[in-house]
């Protein structure tokens, strides 16, 4: 009994030591304390050197936490118990968060770099007048292929994914709207359709794609494509850019039938607390020099026109990531759908995943 008590006490002492240690470590990284900014971002979606630069310039410490889908981010913020100062939803999610009163309006008087953004990326239907959001990046959804296994230039259509010769060869991005969307586009329908028959048909068509699908994942696709684990993938343009920088055999195609064009935006969720830091950060990211650096690092397309001009010529003219107007005209933007329809998209998508 005595030995047991000694054991318990020594364990408690060890625990106290651990708590103290981790607390001290967190203090030095600045996780606690008031001069902080809590950024809730997509995985690998900001150049780390910019964070260091920001911290040096302003003295604010940036804590980055990551998510891998709009829906997961929404759930975390809606459910509460968090203290994020800034997050990065896509277009339709901005609309949804706005509707659900999860966003704090921007104080335009504190924003210094708003004129750096191109008119094409401002005042979009998901946030008229940019009351709540500043554009961060934009991009497209497309097909990445490896020319070691697939003839260069031979991929141009969504329907080619269904080709029997690609059995167990395709990696898909794990995103309900994107995968349902590509099936809808391949049938000539809108990505925002609310017609149940169309949605069911799209899902039936996806079921036929199942044998060709190797995996339905997210960030991993980059690594696997770069290593040649699969010859084909459906992913976002910036992800493609990063893969291509690692493996020169990879190419990115926006299918001719059209695709999704999306806009990621910086917003202030209602959980925000550190407003000085927030505006410092927004202004910092709007500076052309920083935005250009970020765009070069991440590989997505920047909506900051002044930053665009600072990018190397070879990026500026890269049609894969800064497509011509005629391509852009074929692209569709996701709209926020009613809760019921969102549920239907999600359910059908989950059923597709279960069908394998």
């Amino acid at each position, binding site marked *: 009994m005595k030995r047991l008590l000694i054991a318990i006490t020594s364990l408690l002492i060890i*625990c106290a030591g651990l708590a103290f240690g981790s607390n001290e*470590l967190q203090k030095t990284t600045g996780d606690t304390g008031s001069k902080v900014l809590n950024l809730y971002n997509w*995985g690998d979606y900001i150049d780390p050197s910019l964070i260091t630069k920001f911290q040096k310039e302003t003295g604010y410490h940036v804590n980055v936490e990551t998510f891998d889908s709009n829906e997961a981010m929404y759930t975390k913020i809606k459910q509460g*118990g968090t203290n994020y100062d800034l997050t990065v939803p896509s277009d339709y999610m901005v609309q949804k968060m706005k509707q659900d009163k999860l966003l704090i309006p921007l104080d335009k008087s504190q924003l210094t770099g708003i004129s750096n953004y191109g008119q094409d990326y401002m005042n979009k239907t998901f946030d008229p007048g940019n009351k709540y959001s500043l554009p961060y990046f934009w991009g497209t959804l497309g097909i990445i292929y490896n020319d070691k296994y697939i003839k260069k230039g031979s991929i141009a259509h969504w329907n080619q994914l269904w080709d029997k010769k690609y059995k167990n060869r395709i990696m898909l991005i794990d995103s309900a709207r994107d995968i349902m969307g590509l099936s809808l586009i391949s049938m000539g329908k809108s990505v925002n359709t609310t017609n149940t028959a169309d949605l069911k048909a799209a899902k039936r068509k996806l079921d036929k794609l199942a044998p060709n699908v190797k995996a339905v*994942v997210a960030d*991993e696709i980059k690594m696997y494509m770069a290593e040649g684990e699969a010859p084909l993938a459906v992913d976002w343009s910036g992800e493609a850019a990063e893969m291509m920088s690692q493996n020169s055999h990879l190419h990115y195609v926006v299918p001719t039938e059209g695709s999704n064009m999306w806009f990621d935006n910086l917003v202030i969720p209602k959980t925000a607390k550190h407003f000085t830091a927030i505006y410092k950060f927004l202004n910092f990211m709007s500076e052309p020099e920083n935005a250009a650096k970020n765009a070069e690092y991440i590989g997505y397309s920047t909506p900051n026109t002044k930053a665009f001009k600072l990018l190397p010529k070879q990026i500026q003219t890269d049609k894969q990531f800064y497509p011509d107007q005629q391509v852009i005209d074929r692209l569709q933007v996701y709209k926020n759908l009613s809760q019921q329809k969102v549920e239907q998209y999600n359910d059908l998508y989950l059923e597709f995943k279960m069908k394998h």
Partner: protein
Amino acid sequence: MQSKASKFGKFYLIFIFLLLYIPIAYLIIYSFSKGTTMANFHGFTLKHYQDLFADKRMLAIFLNTILIALLSSLISTIIGTIGAFAVHNARKRHTKQTLLSLNSILLVSPDVIIGASFLIFFTSLSVPLGFWSVLLSHIAFEIPIVLLMVLPRLNEMSPSLINAALDLGATPSQILSQIIIPYIQPGIIAGFFMAITYSLDDFAVTFFVTGNGFTTLSVEIYSRARQGIDLEINALSGIMFIFSLILVLVYYFIESHNVSKGRKKNRLEAVE
């Protein structure tokens, strides 16, 4: 029972032990590789360990994980042992069965269910998600395994032992501290170590109930592993392995210590 294992047996043991340890060895070997992926060894370096020790966030997460494991195991061992007494002492068979079934619910439930239900529970009570929610969850899912480790020991204990002590005029607290606790101690220790195992190994429950920047290693590794192979994680597994080795040695030391003491006692009793 301790007759010698056959030749085939030895071969089989070695084979399975190799299988069990190859993935871990593989992880650790590549933590010393100069390359960036787990393919083709590129020469020896300690760079990834340096990176790891410079990564204060990772170190804080590491300490947090150990803290949660030790603290939750300690508390759950105490509560679980109490629970074992409750089940053992239940007079009615019906009560006993009900208690046992309730106890097993968390044990037999898949961890996503535990995670999901705790998430609902914490949000409906508006408990902020973070250290406390993770700690409470870990305590909660470790209690039943401790109980199951302690209960058989209690059941094995013959009532005559206690009756004899009572006849000799021992008080209940004496009986508890001098007879019962020493007798069930191996169960308690096993329960404690099982609880640590559960805690260190848990991912799903923590994944559901964590938030506010508080993460444990498994959640952190999950989000990093999805971004690709990062040999810093390999270095981390090297450290984790050494840490586990130390824990195992401690456990083995405690156990063998107990056993030798127990044997001595038995011998004495035999002499008497």
